[in-house]
């Protein structure tokens, strides 16, 4: 963003630097900026929804526009805000936590970002091209086939491009964790954030292809006369629901597990205690991920799959509560006997625990298949998943951003404003969503453009809207804080929180090669071990030598741009096929160029390294 060196460098070269970077730390910043942008966009859409529902029979926005807004709110928040923000944290932190100089595939990492970015832009162009998708983020067939504008095509193609990017990111992190760990960093010494990111990446790998196929089928049906979801031609609309939720349910865990990881870093740091029950935390993470693939049909209890299927999926779903409960209690007992510092990341962790517990409780209630006949597709469900996703994922992301901000930028966000942000957001959140549980039970289905007067729904909807404004103001404070902090640019040390893990052993922000010498890891919480048993500095595992680094590349940007252009051709067809030819040609050409041109990286020489500091956090 703005280190002094870059300020001198001028805008053009900074831009080129970011367009071509393969450095995981810069890609993290790209993900962060893009993710926050889409988060604000999704937030504005949320505000439109809440204003429309402030009073019964309101005509603030039209029914059609409302459906577009609700669809884009969900799609944006899940795919374009939460996912990239999680990737931002993973990129910023994960390689540092395992003592790696970069990720396994720096080029693919960059490609993943640009695919996500162009997919997101593609999706949002729909607003200006005849209307956004209007069928809900779940895009159930055949409603998605009935939708007349090109909105759903923007949805299917945009998400397809974004999805490729996510898939690549996932594979990249899996291999990074498996192959790139520093000496001594065994699996059972990996920090929990690395563990949960690793497992989330595995989930991405096995969940996203189902979405890919679903989106292909949708595209074929809409644009090429396919019959997958056309009952007249023998098609079956339930196939979409299965594919979507085979992806969609693991997606929930992809979102929440890294947040669990963030809190599992923050709570030990600010309690000055090692994580209670580390191995059971790891085990619970794996178990949640495993069970996460067996429960997709709990989104489909009312579809009519029959009582046997419903019962099996109900019980399997309930089972997930057990490992999740283990995690909650482990966090509590990490704090037990500790020495708790109420910094803003810790306060957010403390806000997370009861909030997520409520989200988990309603989750178990929803798992009860018969009772779900009442909850399903009502505001009860809306309340539930916002408790989990906002109370878990979003709080986790913001806690993580604040916690690792010094590591990413070398500056410290203002603590006072952080607390203001948290309390406004947190209280606003509970006002918004707590009462939605009751709205649902009182008979208000979700995705309702209007609710009618005299049905007892007025008061809670009003409270909910008021709460939403609280969340909005909180977010604005956070953004002001970011701008102010970066304007001031006050540098902090490499370990401002007195933390425990490896990333805090090096300067903030870290040099582009991260570790001058490969670190030797001597236990869980590597830095803490050295603080207690050594001189507080990580021992090197190798003598100072040349460091191999990857070359920067503009190719990922071009590959993604090609698919972006091709998307329009595939959608509008006719004369526009030329765009598809140009786009696919660009992509294929760029891939071929990448394949044919040798790219073996370069070395940072020992002599240059010797001139710089000792590579520690001091």
């Amino acid at each position, binding site marked *: 963003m703005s280190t002094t060196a870059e300020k001198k460098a001028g805008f053009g070269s900074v831009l080129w630097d970011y367009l071509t970077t393969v450095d995981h730390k810069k890609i993290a910043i790209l993900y962060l900026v893009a993710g926050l942008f889409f988060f604000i966009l999704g937030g504005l859409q949320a505000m439109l929804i809440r204003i429309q529902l402030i009073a019964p029979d309101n005509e603030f926005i*039209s029914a059609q526009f409302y*459906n577009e807004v609700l669809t884009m709110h969900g799609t944006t928040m899940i795919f374009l805000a939460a996912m990239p923000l999680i990737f931002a944290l993973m990129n910023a932190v994960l390689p540092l936590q395992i003592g790696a100089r970069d990720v396994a595939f720096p080029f693919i990492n960059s490609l993943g970002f640009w695919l996500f970015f162009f997919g997101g832009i593609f999706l949002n162009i729909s607003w200006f091209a005849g209307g956004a998708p209007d069928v809900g983020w779940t895009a159930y067939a055949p409603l998605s086939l009935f939708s007349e504008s090109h909105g759903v095509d923007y949805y299917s193609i945009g998400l397809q491009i974004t999805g490729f990017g996510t898939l690549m990111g996932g594979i990249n992190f899996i291999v990074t964790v498996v192959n790139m760990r520093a000496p001594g960093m065994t699996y059972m010494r990996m920090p929990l954030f690395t563990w949960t990111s690793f497992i989330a990446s595995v989930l991405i790998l096995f969940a996203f292809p189902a979405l890919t196929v679903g989106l292909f089928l949708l595209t074929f049906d809409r644009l090429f006369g396919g019959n997958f979801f056309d009952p007249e031609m023998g098609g079956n*609309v339930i196939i979409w629901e299965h594919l979507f939720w085979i992806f969609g349910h693991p997606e929930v865990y992809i979102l929440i597990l890294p947040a669990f990881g963030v809190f599992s870093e923050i709570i030990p740091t600010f309690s000055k205690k090692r994580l209670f029950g580390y191995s059971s935390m790891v085990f619970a993470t794996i178990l949640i991920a495993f069970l996460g693939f067996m429960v997709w049909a709990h989104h489909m209890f009312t579809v009519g799959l029959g009582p046997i299927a419903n019962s099996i999926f109900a019980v399997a779903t309930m089972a997930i509560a057990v490992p999740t409960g283990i995690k909650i209690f482990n966090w509590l007992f990490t704090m037990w006997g500790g*020495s708790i510092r109420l910094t803003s990341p810790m306060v957010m962790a403390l806000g997370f625990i009861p909030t997520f517990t409520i989200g988990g409780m309603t989750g178990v209630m929803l798992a009860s298949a018969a009772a779900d006949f009442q909850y399903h*597709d009502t505001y009860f469900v809306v309340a539930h998943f916002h408790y989990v996703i906002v109370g878990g994922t979003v709080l986790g992301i913001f806690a993580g951003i604040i916690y690792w901000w010094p590591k990413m930028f070398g500056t410290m966000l203002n603590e006072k404003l952080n607390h203001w942000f948290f309390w406004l957001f947190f209280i606003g959140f509970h006002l918004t969503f707590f009462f939605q549980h*009751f709205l649902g039970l009182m008979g208000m289905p979700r995705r309702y*453009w209007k609710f009618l007067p005299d049905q007892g729904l007025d008061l809670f909807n009003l409270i909910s809207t008021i709460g939403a404004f609280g969340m909005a103001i909180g977010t604005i404070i956070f953004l002001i804080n970011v701008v102010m902090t970066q304007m001031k640019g006050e540098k902090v040390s490499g370990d401002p929180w007195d933390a425990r893990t490896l990333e805090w052993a090096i300067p903030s922000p870290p040099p582009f090669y991260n570790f001058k010498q490969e670190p030797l890891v001597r236990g869980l919480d590597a830095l803490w071990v050295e603080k207690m048993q050594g001189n507080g500095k990580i021992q090197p595992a190798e003598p100072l030598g040349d460091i191999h680094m990857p070359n920067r590349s503009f190719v990922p940007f071009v590959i993604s741009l090609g698919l972006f252009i091709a998307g329009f051709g595939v959608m509008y067809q006719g004369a526009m096929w030329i765009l598809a030819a140009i786009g696919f040609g660009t992509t294929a050409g760029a891939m071929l160029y990448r394949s044919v041109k040798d790219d073996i990286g370069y070395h940072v020489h020992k002599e240059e390294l010797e001139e710089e500091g000792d590579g520690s956090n001091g």
Partner: protein
Amino acid sequence: MKGWMTRFKAVMALTVMALILSGCGEPFLSTLQPRGEGAAMLLELIILSTVIMLFVFVVVMAIYIYVVIKFRQKEGQEDFIPKQTEGSHALETLWTVIPIILLLILAVPTVQYTFTFADVNNPEVSQEGEELDQIWIDVTGKQYWWHFEYEGLDITTSQEIYIPTDRRVYLSMISDDVIHSFWVPSIQGKMDVNPTGNRNEMWLQADEEGVYWGKCAELCGPSHSLMDFKVIAVSPGEFEEWVEDMQGVTGEEEPETTTAQAGQETFEENCLSCHAVGSSPNKVGPNLTNFADRDKLAGVFDMTEENLFEWIDTKGEEMKPGNLMVDAPYDLNEEEINQVIEYLMTLSPSEVTPESADNGVYIDSDLSDLFPEEEEEDAEESEEDEETDENDEE
């Protein structure tokens, strides 16, 4: 099974009180004020799970509050290093086993109820031990209204179904376009209405007479939130009367006033290709047999002549965005519309209307007259057919 259920009753009563105090919506809409067997069972399950979950929450919060108060960093002790505990097998076993037990307590009734709700094949038995005749209604969901056909009773209606309070009524549901979901919160949970060949079946049962609001619960287009319908539960005797009155409608009845007669003519010329009066398989648009008795216009609007005028005049374009009537080719002037309205307002074949659900009158019947023995039924049906044929010729 029943044993632990009663043990929970006391706790449940408290919870119910708490829920009522917190405001639980309107009795015709809220799941928290069940007026039928299904919703009552589901509320039991909801309360059971709430109680279990509140127990967990209280435990978590107790530890949480204790920890946060007790273990804050004390002033002057910034350098204090707490003991680095690895974990505790005993504790970890404890918080694995107890949740499993709690979940089993919830899982058993969940499975049991799931099967109960799926059961549509066991005929109910009356107190005298006789098998009750099953009423089956074919439901078709359409953007954005509902079509109902009473199987074997030769009645078609839309937007509002009448059911007797003495038994379960069975629904067989399918959609003509996109997926909808049929939900009457205060008497029964919801079920999706799918377009793909497979009909979903469920049952409805209302304990008390009343007009219950139904909602579409699956996003189906712009007017998803306006796809309301009503379930009108009346006493068995009233239901029987209603059925007989509805069966009598042929659509050929001539209204009394001349304006209405003119309206009927206009209606037949412009509207009959989509709408029908009397029993008919035509479901392009809503069946209007008892239109004037409707509680609401188009499911959500007050049944006033102004609203009706606007609807016919604008084809509901603004009132129900995205509704398919906007494609109807008719073009009526103000006078014709008023005539049609006058005609429509005569479509009130029965004394039994939504008011009958609230008037406190209870008429008993076992409804066996509606379901004559098989052979008789066939004979009567053919006679009736002949009669209607003759009428048609006239």
